[in-house]
């Protein structure tokens, strides 16, 4: 055995499954929709787009697959992966199994920003930018309000996060109250329920780099993340700079949540559900958890979004489906594995 080789955190077969599963699902999702196409046709569209050749394909098919379904599926994968990794990081950080991406108020802040932008009649890019800004602002406020004179640790951060979350929820209600009931209020309500229907390459261009970079940073830190749940003295005695590690984790998890929510509204449940499924399957080692969360999160949201847009004639809000599909699945798994611990 080569002793300088990394320890395998996952069995090789799982490594392969984790890589292939989201890709295969994405291809299937490309086929499914209001109009279904065979996989060969999708292949042709890809080849013609990549090689820029003039193979005879229907303009309409190319348009639907390349400009409508593809960005939407890519966004579902990114948002699913981002929210799962973010939830996983927050659970480790607070060593609390109930932590979600919204623990520090970032999702509420982002939603408020989006609602405000919709009220002001901003265009799509404006909504996304303002939403992201308010998400970061909410976490900054949480951090500032918890960093009092006495450093009572992470519990005060969680408490101020809950306060900030409820403050921004109240502000969202205020915006809804002020909104025009004919046009603005439905738009805001629909946005809050979460939807990927507005996905396009232009909105991906703004949101995707942020999610990809922050996921990659946490992936690099995956071994160090195992130190996060330990007590402060303990972590320091292992020779780690725990303050820096916490700040990096919060920054990355916050940024990826804010970009996700800014792109497609509040997609509930994913950040709690996927990390726990991964914990039940692979244990608490972040070296396995982070890759697993990326893969499972991406796959889950692709499945759910495909159902949301193809089950009925009008699109179903995605948060409704994540809960309806996620909750029973979660309960079955919990009963089967006998639960989990952080």
């Amino acid at each position, binding site marked *: 055995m080569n002793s*300088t080789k990394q*320890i395998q955190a996952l069995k090789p077969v799982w490594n392969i499954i984790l890589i292939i599963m989201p890709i295969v699902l994405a291809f299937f999702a490309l086929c499914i929709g209001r109009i279904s196409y065979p996989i060969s046709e999708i292949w042709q569209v890809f080849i013609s787009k990549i090689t820029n050749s003039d193979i005879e394909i229907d303009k309409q098919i190319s348009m639907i697959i390349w400009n409508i379904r593809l960005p939407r599926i890519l966004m579902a994968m990114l948002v699913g992966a981002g929210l799962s990794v973010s939830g996983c990081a927050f659970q480790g950080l607070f060593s609390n199994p109930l932590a979600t991406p919204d623990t520090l108020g970032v999702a509420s802040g982002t939603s408020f920003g989006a609602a405000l932008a919709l009220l002001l009649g901003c265009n799509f890019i404006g909504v996304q930018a303002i939403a992201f800004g308010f998400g970061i602002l909410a976490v900054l406020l949480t951090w500032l309000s918890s960093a009092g004179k006495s450093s009572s640790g992470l519990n005060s951060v969680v408490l101020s996060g809950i306060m900030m979350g409820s403050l921004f929820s109240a502000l969202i209600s205020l915006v809804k109250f002020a909104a025009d009931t004919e046009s603005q209020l439905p738009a805001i309500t629909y946005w809050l329920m979460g939807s990927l229907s507005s996905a396009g390459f232009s909105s991906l261009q703004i949101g995707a780099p942020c999610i990809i970079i922050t996921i990659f940073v946490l992936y690099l830190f995956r*071994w160090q993340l195992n130190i996060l749940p330990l007590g402060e003295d303990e972590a320091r*005695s292992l020779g780690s700079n725990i303050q820096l590690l916490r700040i990096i984790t919060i920054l990355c998890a916050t940024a990826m949540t804010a970009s996700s929510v800014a792109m497609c509204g509040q997609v509930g449940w994913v950040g709690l559900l996927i990390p726990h499924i991964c914990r039940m399957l692979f*244990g608490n080692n972040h070296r396995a958890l982070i890759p697993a969360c990326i893969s499972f999160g991406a796959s889950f949201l692709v499945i759910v979004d495909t159902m949301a847009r193809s089950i009925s004639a009008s699109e179903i809000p995605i948060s409704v489906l994540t809960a309806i599909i996620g909750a029973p699945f979660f309960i079955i798994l919990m009963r089967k594995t006998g639960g989990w611990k952080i």
Partner: protein
Amino acid sequence: MKLEIKNGCFGYSKQKIILNHIDFSAESGDLVAILGPNGAGKTTLLRCMLGFLKWHSGETLLNHKNLNQIPIKTLWKQIAYVPQAKNFNSASKAEEAILLGRNAHFGMFSQPKQSDLKLVHEIMEKLNILYLAKKSCSEISGGELQMVLIARALIAEPKILILDEPESNLDFRNQLIILETMSELTRQGMTCIFNTHYPDHALRRSNKALLLQKNGTCKFGKTSEIITTEKIQEAFQVKTVIHKIENQNQVYYSILPLELAESNQLSTGGNLC
């Protein structure tokens, strides 16, 4: 490797001083016991000693160098800390938990190697806990968990081991295992410093002792000079007697508490007859 505290003073608030002019030193091969009544500041002393809390005045020196000026990775390759097992809650596998102790040897982004895992298994083998490797830390006994935490500290290959009440809450077989492990490590040239509630363990195992008083001062020196009936009475307000037991040509010392000392007798205790 020499660890010293010079004139250490500390209090959580300015008004109430907990540790007052602590002087202490330990060298290779020393087994030092820190004793003191509840609330005298034993754990606080350890936390100050390791730099988790800042001394108000005075300093901790490692080989004559101020502890705070040593880079963290360098420092924690030389000193390892074993926290109280009762505060530990993690459901990771024992071998994964122990592997974390290797962190001081890693860079920011590096991942553990096969050779590190081999080291984990070697240390577990040495401590006779290899059978725990794949078990979750939340499903093993208190004594086993304490051994896992000691293994985690040892895998950093430190010169100094600092343990916070390692033998509390354990039955006497497990206590013996922990104490014998510490004795063995000091025989190999390591320095062990441990907090304890048992004067007996200090008397039997350590060659140096530090006795904390309620007023924050301390007495430090050879165990036989510090753990005496007078000094124990002064610190704990308990009258004791020190036994000498001979068994199969070995001499053992044991300390037996007799009664509460006069000055601090319970108000109802005096008139029971």
